[in-house]
């Protein structure tokens, strides 16, 4: 609820608006219920007793009308909000969005920057004030890609690519998580998001490029094994079209665990 970008602000605005609209009805309703019970308590003999009163066309009309009107009002909000904040919809900006390809692993995150030719694990670096276009897939099971302070989340699914557009207005550090339970390492499947000013971002790209290992299909296959090692690291070069190979399952998916006597074994923490 402390958004740092236009999408998050949009989400929050809708939550606040809708809550206020509903509280406008909900609070009087609760008060009416309590008052009604109190006023007509059995010990209050001053209140009139209407043992056969059980219908009033006017009250019926009002009690159907109130929720219908509120929902009509909210429907407008739903209609506009769903279209405006659709995750697939590009953000309005005079700057060209940064392309980032996201792969959820068991239980880490891989970020590929196809235009820059670098990749990182468990650390997402983005330029502040510029929209980012995420293409998201999964190496194995479902996850959701979610940076709460930047806004909307979306599912990562194997064999499919979903789209998300986010933007961080200011430099800063944010948390990224998976919002969909994905197995034993799920709780610590977090990543750091660093939003940097444009020049520092360019500096990070050039420092990363050429340093560290190359991300090709073999290196990717190593990443797909279940691991709870959450330390971030980077790749200095990326095999072109690797993301496409992952999304179309040409690069083999995560192998999962091994079973023993009906009980599963899981790699110990830190094992790669």
């Amino acid at each position, binding site marked *: 609820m402390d958004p740092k970008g236009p999408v998050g602000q949009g989400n929050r605005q809708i939550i606040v608006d809708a809550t206020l609209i509903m509280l406008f009805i909900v609070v009087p309703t609760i008060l009416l219920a309590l008052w009604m019970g109190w006023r007509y308590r059995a010990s209050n003999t001053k209140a009139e007793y209407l043992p056969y009163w059980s219908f009033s066309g006017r009250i019926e009309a009002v009690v159907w009308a109130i929720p219908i009107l509120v929902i009509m009002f909210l429907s407008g909000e*739903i209609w506009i909000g769903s279209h405006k904040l659709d995750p697939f919809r590009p953000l309005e900006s005079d700057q060209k969005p940064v392309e980032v390809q996201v792969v959820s692993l068991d239980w880490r995150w891989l970020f590929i920057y196809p235009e820059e030719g670098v990749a990182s694990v468990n650390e997402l670096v983005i330029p502040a004030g510029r929209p980012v276009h995420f293409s998201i897939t999964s190496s194995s099971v479902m996850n959701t890609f979610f940076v709460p302070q930047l806004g909307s989340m979306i599912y990562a699914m194997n064999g499919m690519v979903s789209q998300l557009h986010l933007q961080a207005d200011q430099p800063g550090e944010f948390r990224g998580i998976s919002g969909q339970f994905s197995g034993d390492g799920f709780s610590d499947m977090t990543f750091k998001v660093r939003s940097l000013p444009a020049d520092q971002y360019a500096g990070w790209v050039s420092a990363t490029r050429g340093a560290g290992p190359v991300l090709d299909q073999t290196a990717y296959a190593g990443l797909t094994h279940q691991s709870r090692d959450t330390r971030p690291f980077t790749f200095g070069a990326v095999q072109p079209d690797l993301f496409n190979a992952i999304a179309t399952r040409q690069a083999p998916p995560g*192998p999962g665990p091994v079973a023993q006597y009906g009980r599963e074994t899981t790699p110990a923490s830190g094992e790669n």
Partner: protein
Amino acid sequence: MFGKLSWAAVPLHEPIPMITSVVVILILLGVIGWVVAKGHWRYIWDEWITSVDHKRIGIMYILLGAVMLVRGFADAIMMRTQQAAAIGESAGYLPPEHYNQIFSAHGTIMIFFAAMPLVIGMMNYVMPLQLGVRDVAFPTLNSVGFWLTAAGALLVNISLFVGEFARTGWLPYPPLSETTYTPGVGVDYYLWAVQISGIGTLMTGVNLVTTVLKMRAPGMSYLRMPMFCWTTLASNLLIIAVFPILTATLAMLTLDRYFGFHFFTNEAGGNQMMFVNLIWAWGHPEVYILVLPAFGIFSEIFSTFSGKPLFGYRSMVAATLFIVVVSCMVWLHHFFTMGAGPAVNTFFGIASSVIAVGTGVKIYNWIFTMYGGRVRFEVPMLWSMGFLVTFVIGGMTGVLLAIPPADFVTHNSMFLVAHFHNVILGGVVFALFAAIEYWFPKAFGFRLHPGWGKAAFWFAFIGFWVTFTPLYILGLQGMTRRLQHINYPEWAPMLYLSVFGVAILVVGAACQVIQLVVSIRDRDKLRDVTGDPWDGRSMEWATPSPPPMFNFAVIPNVEGEEAYWGIKTRAIETQRLGPEPVYKPIHMPLNSPVGVITAFFASVTGFALIWHIWWLVILGLVCAFAGFVWFAWRDIHEFEIPAEEVARIDRARRAARRAILERLAREQGKPA
């Protein structure tokens, strides 16, 4: 010989399941030993286990649900304490492979084996009495349905001791639940337990719908039925409509896991999104299967304790049926974040919030039922008032989640967790506690102690809000559900507060237990001799407490809405009961062990399937089938209660009623 089963499947090195299992087994053995030693075995077998009486089956359902509610609550305590203990560097006391089983078991048990049996038990017990009939349409099927549900519950609890339970959440989303990513037996336990109990639920649905449609007392037209019968009908129509979807979906996942099919796999054209769609096409109506009978319970209570008919009865019926239809058109709101596109999201967003219209109307109708009434704040009424306050807020957060752009940041968050506990605890569980309080004297002939009942309500009500308000806040701060370990220490205060709330809830639960014990001890003081302890309005209060096996000596003739209220006011006005009817012998269905036998072999088959013990699968299926054949071939299926016996029981009832009339006359005769 034993498939995948070996001694290694028993978690000897894990203290929590071992100690729990040993305690549970000791209690079970103790109870069985006590029953056998005291010579009660015959009674329990004849009068309960093989009973086809809807009242006995209803009580057994409620007992099963109550025991499972305690089990699910124990899971909940472990979850909340683990989250409070595992913040930052600390790992807590439950490793992920154990914690993940606990939250999966918590959801599965609470929905399938606590809420469903409690709700079905209430419908089973009350609805035939309210309709003025002697039993449900298919009494033996009723018994089969109950025992199959119990078989499912048994399998879930065996998983604690032998093997493991699912670690995939209460709805096992593929591909995580496919053999590649979950090769163990946990998901198989889930599949077979839910599958077996699901068949039982479907049987109950068919049975209760038939009862409402075909078995009403003469004169009990649809628009004269008490509201609870309407919501029972609505809920069971939904069961018939959507439980087959659940069965089919789980069958497809089973084929994937056992025979390498590709319905939901990543490869070979399988599609995980299909599972998510199908499971929620069942899952969302399931919520209304639970909550509609709860609405019926509140309707009965608001009207009875206000001393007035329900306000806007026809409007209530319309709102109920409206919810039935719309509830089947909203499933996509469980996954707005799957990327369906703005048009689809808009449609399902609006459809979901439209349900609030039906619910909103009901809320106002309950409020206006109190208008001009004489509201008695007995324990059931307290739960109902608590429900009104709680449920309205739960409804509000629900509509919030139904707005796609709001859901994009609250999907799968603690906000969602708080929301559905808000409606299921505040709606369904409050209703069930109210209903137990309300109908307990009918079932057992004495009231529950009101003091302890009030204490239980206040602890539960306050405990609920202290537990779940922090979770709403954490959800808005970006905390997602199902975390075994918390990485952000600033969430600690809210998590501690939530544990404190759970402690209050534990006190509330203890009050419930004490209430039961105290009430049994003081049963003579709390005795209900009249059969009508709350000044009720529907037909169940026309019977003595507890009702005789045949419910009504003579099937009543219904002459208006609120059938019993009409009979009662007429008797009070004329100062006498109607003329004594001519008693005839009554034919009642014979008890049958077919339900428990089928369920026993269904459990055996389920267990054998989980562990791949193929010869036992075949043996179990053959025996279960043989049980049915044997049942179908029986010659005598009814027995006769002689007219003198009926007359004896009914004359006692009439004497009690006459005593009330005389007492009322004396009170009116006294100078004011």
